[in-house]
């Protein structure tokens, strides 16, 4: 795992972080639920909690889908190319390219035949890692690897990711074991965690 220069992180007195969606993006509960699951994957292994709130202006983390030049000097480039970006702590800005074909269900059936679709949760988990202070990793299996192949779903934390986030914030007291969670995608998506995390 890697960290941003200077190892920025959310301060000790801010372990319960809020996130909000840009009100200009009319997102369904299903889409918001994808982000809730993605945040949950990080809070599962470290001492951070995330709560969705309505107030976009006061939230610690702000999430928005935008196209092209959206004002931060890092314009999106249409379908594929760059998919999203996020800023290091304590900025909390998380931007996604609205031009992508985002798949929100996590369903992998026939996914491999689609070359221009991207799994939203996979990208969300990666970008949240940036929001929390992790940089890109050269471990290809890790969440924080910079690229994602279209038609692939990658949401499982590797030991590289877990070690990185626990270096920054410590372990979740309820996270027993040093190895990353091994639940399968299907177990997670139908289990109590996935359901409870939905907004």
């Amino acid at each position, binding site marked *: 795992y890697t960290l941003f220069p200077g190892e920025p992180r959310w301060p000790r007195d801010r372990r319960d972080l809020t996130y909000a969606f840009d009100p200009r993006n009319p997102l369904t509960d299903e889409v918001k639920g994808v982000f809730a699951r993605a945040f949950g994957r990080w809070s599962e292994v470290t001492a951070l909690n995330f709560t969705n709130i309505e107030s976009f202006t006061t939230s610690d983390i702000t999430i928005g889908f935008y196209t092209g030049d959206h004002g931060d000097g890092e314009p999106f480039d249409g379908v*594929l*190319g*760059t998919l999203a970006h996020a800023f290091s702590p304590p900025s909390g800005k998380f931007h996604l390219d609205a031009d992508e*074909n985002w*798949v929100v269900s996590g369903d992998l059936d026939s996914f491999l035949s689609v070359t221009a679709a991207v799994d939203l949760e996979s990208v969300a988990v990666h970008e949240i890692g940036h929001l929390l202070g992790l940089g890109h990793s050269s471990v290809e299996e890790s969440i924080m690897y910079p690229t*994602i192949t279209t038609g692939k779903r990658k949401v499982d934390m590797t030991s590289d990711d877990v070690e990185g986030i626990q270096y920054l914030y410590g372990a979740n007291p309820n996270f027993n074991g040093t190895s990353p969670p091994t639940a399968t995608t299907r177990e997670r998506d139908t289990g109590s965690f996935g359901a409870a995390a939905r907004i």
Partner: protein
Amino acid sequence: WFFPNTTAIPPSLRNTTRVFWDAFSNFTGCHHGQNVDGLFRIKKYFQRFGYIPETYSGNFTDDFDDILKNAVELYQKNFRLNVTGQLDALTIKHIVVPRCGNPDVVNGTSLMHNGRRKTFEVNFSPGGKVPRLHTVKH
């Protein structure tokens, strides 16, 4: 564009051509010393992700110069490719894969190497013309 699953994606959108980066395939095989029409665009790509510092902005040519060679080599190290310094097929294949927009190299420091919290610093000469690659293991 949100789709509940892949079957919901209209056929016309399923195999959309990548707008910009697929064109990079034309640079496959390019190496140091060549001048290839449009090569400046791949320098912009590398600059976007931190492999070429912002100080070089606006001065890109189509020459495969030392600046580009060093950027390619660092990219290849980061992605554990064979470090050839050339835009070989495997390197190009990696470049066109969709990716996060965050840079891999921040303020001249690449953090993307194998191992825990190793950092590799990329220092550039004060004159700003000939970059010098210098790695430091922390």
